[in-house]
C-alpha cells in the first residue's frame, strides 16, 4: 500500500524553464512533507519542507505547494539549472504521533533531467 505516490518516474525540462514535480498521498495523518534530492551513489539530501498548517513554502528557486483537500503537493524549481538533474523524492511524516519517531514515508522518486 503506497501511501506516498510519485506517478511520474521521469521528467525532462529545458534549462531556464520551470520544473514541476508532483506527489500525492493517501494518509490523512501526515502533517509534514519534505522533498529530498538524490544524486547517484549519494544519500538523499534535504531540500525543502512544508507543514500542513501552510499551503506554500519558498526557499530561493524552490517552492513547495500543499493542497490538503486534494492530498497533493508539488515542488516548483525555477529557473531550472543543469545541476538540478537528480532524483527527487517526496516524503511525509506524522509528527503528532509515533512518540517522537519521525519516520519518513517516501515516494518512489522522479528523475529530473535538465536539458542545457
Amino acid at each position, binding site marked *: 500500500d*503506497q501511501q*506516498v505516490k*510519485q506517478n511520474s518516474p521521469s521528467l525532462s525540462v529545458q534549462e531556464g524553464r520551470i520544473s514541476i514535480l508532483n506527489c500525492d498521498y493517501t494518509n490523512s495523518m501526515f502533517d*509534514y512533507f519534505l522533498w*529530498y534530492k538524490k544524486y547517484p*551513489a*549519494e*544519500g*538523499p*539530501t*534535504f531540500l525543502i*519542507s512544508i*507543514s500542513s498548517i501552510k499551503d506554500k513554502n519558498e526557499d530561493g528557486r524552490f517552492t513547495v505547494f500543499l493542497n490538503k483537500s486534494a492530498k497533493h503537493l508539488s515542488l516548483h524549481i525555477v529557473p531550472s539549472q543543469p545541476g538540478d538533474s537528480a532524483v527527487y*523524492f517526496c*516524503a511525509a*511524516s506524522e*509528527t503528532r504521533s*509515533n512518540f*517522537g*519517531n*519521525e*519516520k*519518513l*514515508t*517516501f*515516494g*518512489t*522518486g522522479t528523475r529530473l533531467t535538465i536539458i542545457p
Partner: protein
Amino acid sequence: GAGVSQSPSNKVTEKGKDVELRCDPISGHTALYWYRQSLGQGLEFLIYFQGNSAPDKSGLPSDRFSAERTGGSVSTLTIQRTQQEDSAVYLCASSLSRGGYLNTQYFGPGTRLTVL
C-alpha cells in the same frame, strides 16, 4: 563537520550468509533511522533509535533483521541468512531530537547489498 558515514559502501554476499552494516551518525544526533531502497522503490523505514529508549522495530521485514546502537552513537544492522530479496541499498539517517519540531534527517551514502 562530518556527515553520516556508512560502511561498507558495497557488499556482495552469498545467499544464506550473515551480513553486518555499520552507520556512524552525526556527532550529537540522538535519533538514528535505518531505511532501505529496493530497486524501483522508494525508501522504506526499517528501525528507529532515540537515545537510550527501546527502538521502534516496526519496519523490520522479518526476524532475520536486527539492529543495535551502542553507546547512543554507532549502529549496526545485521541481516542473518540473507536472501536474494534482501538486495537493496541500506541507508542510515540521523537527526537532532528537539521535541515538538520535525527534525531534518541527514542521510549517509548508503550500503549497496547484493545477495547472489
